[in-house]
């Protein structure tokens, strides 16, 4: 019998996915007090994420929640929300899955705290993506950032972890102060924190102040997504933080920050006078992120650090779509949304491999990848495929992501930026190849690298998704572009 949801209050349905996650987070927190064996609590956290996805599926079915704002205009029901929340939950699920073997080894005393913080950070991100009110976007951002600061410093006796946490914290706090000041000016100009009303009221606002506020907001978000020149914290935070946490940083918080960027700029700051200005600013940030990220990554000897610079360059690629969204909203933002999904799916497998190395007591230097093809051929070939996807070679999902961004850039008249993106993809072959060369053409005496079932699952899912989502990308990109149809117009 199909379940009739029409009688359920849509307010409850739209809040159900984050609600389920919050309940599970609290239950896990309490059970931690009474349980000696911690491993099943990791499983319980994963169940929470999966149930939250199920709840999201219910809420997103046509007719279950009419599009609009709920909870005093704080939470929005539209395709954009559903898509982003699903992406964030997938990222959180993958992170929990690839941490399961690592956490008992490296964080034996704070196992459950680890999952707790991942769940709460995800909760904050879900609200960032689901709101059209800057109050809740900011609160979500803070919830996820503060959980992330602690996650970065969880290895209490490792000075590198302390340092990563401190640098991440100081930069993040500065960024959020700058963002907050920008938001306060926007509120002062319009008298509202609700983005659609802000858009209407912005017409009368004096342009110089508006541009000032816009620059503050761009700088604040620029820190969060690690776009150059606001990226300086990222390599240190990635290198020093616990490895699965760095993987988490490269996947979920950035995706949520991109969602907030699209919301704020397309729904709030989309009057023609400022649209051109932020579009050009984002184009400049995009060019600098791609160039700085890729050129610096070439010199790295630590793979975690290399992945940090790689993520800076990928922020640059995504910014092509953001800049294009000012002139072609559906195509630009649709490409960004698709790229977020493709980046998360690809990255999960690579970070799982790094975690696997640490599980066997090895490091994450380039040299630790030597002879990986001997030690575990399946993993080495999987990694090769994932790097191919990050470079953007067909038929992987990375190629389609880059293709949609390229198309958006060209349609919006940013041909130079699109060409720069193609050139940078070619540069990025250099550093990914360094890892591949170490894996396939170096000899090693080390024993076979065992992955364990949860890591195997993540790598397999990642490889499968890279192939399947890539070849079947048309429904996904259509959904992503349709997400913008409901966004603010």
């Amino acid at each position, binding site marked *: 019998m199909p379940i009739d949801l029409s009688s359920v209050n849509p307010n409850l349905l739209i809040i159900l996915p984050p609600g389920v996650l919050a309940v599970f987070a609290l239950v896990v927190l309490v059970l931690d007090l009474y349980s000696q064996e911690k491993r099943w609590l990791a499983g319980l956290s994963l169940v929470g994420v999966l149930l939250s996805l199920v709840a999201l599926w219910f809420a997103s079915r046509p007719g279950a929640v009419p599009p609009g704002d709920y909870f005093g205009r704080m939470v929005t029901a539209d395709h954009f929300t559903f898509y982003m929340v699903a992406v964030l939950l997938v990222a959180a699920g993958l992170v929990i899955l690839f941490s399961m073997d690592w956490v008992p080894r490296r964080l034996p005393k704070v196992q459950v705290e680890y999952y707790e913080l991942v769940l709460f950070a995800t909760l904050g991100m879900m609200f960032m993506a689901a709101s059209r009110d800057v*109050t809740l976007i*900011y*609160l979500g951002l*803070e919830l996820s950032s*503060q959980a992330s*600061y*602690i996650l970065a*410093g969880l290895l*209490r006796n490792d*000075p*590198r972890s*302390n*340092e*990563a*946490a*401190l*640098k991440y*914290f*100081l930069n993040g*706090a*500065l960024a*959020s*102060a*700058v963002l*907050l*000041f920008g*938001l*306060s*000016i926007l*509120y*002062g100009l319009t*008298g*509202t*924190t609700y983005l659609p009303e802000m858009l209407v009221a912005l017409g009368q606002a004096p342009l110089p102040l508006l541009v000032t506020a816009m620059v503050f907001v761009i700088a604040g978000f620029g820190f969060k997504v690690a776009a150059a020149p606001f990226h300086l914290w990222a*390599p*240190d935070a990635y*290198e*020093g933080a616990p490895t699965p946490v760095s993987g988490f940083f490269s996947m979920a918080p950035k995706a949520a920050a991109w969602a907030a960027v699209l919301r704020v700029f397309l729904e709030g700051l989309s009057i023609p006078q400022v649209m051109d200005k932020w579009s050009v600013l984002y184009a400049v940030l995009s060019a600098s992120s791609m160039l700085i990220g890729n050129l*610096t990554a070439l*010199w*790295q000897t*630590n793979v975690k*650090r290399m992945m940090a610079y790689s993520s800076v360059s990928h922020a640059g690629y995504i910014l092509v779509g953001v800049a294009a969204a000012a002139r072609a909203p559906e195509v630009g933002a649709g490409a960004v949304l698709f790229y977020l999904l493709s980046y998360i799916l690809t990255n999960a497998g690579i970070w799982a491999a790094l975690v696997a190395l640490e599980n066997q007591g090895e490091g994450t230097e380039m040299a630790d990848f030597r002879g990986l093809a001997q030690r575990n051929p399946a993993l080495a070939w999987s990694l090769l495929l994932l790097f191919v996807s990050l470079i953007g070679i067909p038929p992987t999902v990375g190629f389609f992501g880059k293709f949609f961004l390229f198309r958006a850039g060209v349609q919006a008249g940013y041909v130079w930026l699109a060409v720069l993106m193609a050139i940078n993809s070619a540069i990025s072959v250099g550093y990914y190849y360094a890892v591949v060369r170490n894996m396939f053409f170096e000899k090693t005496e080390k024993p076979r690298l065992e992955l364990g079932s949860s890591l195997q699952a993540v790598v397999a899912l990642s490889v499968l998704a890279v192939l399947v989502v890539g070849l079947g990308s048309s429904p996904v990109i259509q959904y992503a572009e349709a997400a913008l149809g409901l966004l603010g117009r």
Partner: protein
Amino acid sequence: MVENGYLALAAVLFALGGVGVLLRRSPLISLMCVELMWNAANLAFVTFARMHGNMDGQVFAFLTITVAAAEAAIGLALIVLLFRRREHVDVDDVHSLRG
């Protein structure tokens, strides 16, 4: 208008905080400067709320105060962790990660 004075004060506080973060090397002082910037934003929110005659800005300021308290707790905890390891804390000494 008296509101303009408050807005000017907010701008000055924000600038002072920003300069402080960039120039001072102690993480503790940096944290205090960031707090100053936050409170500048809060002051702006409350002033704007009065000018517009609605409560949105005041609500935002209240929430931000809570956020800032949580953030300070985390920041101080991280600084204490570093302090246990060394005799004094200076961001220039925190450089085992580089590239």
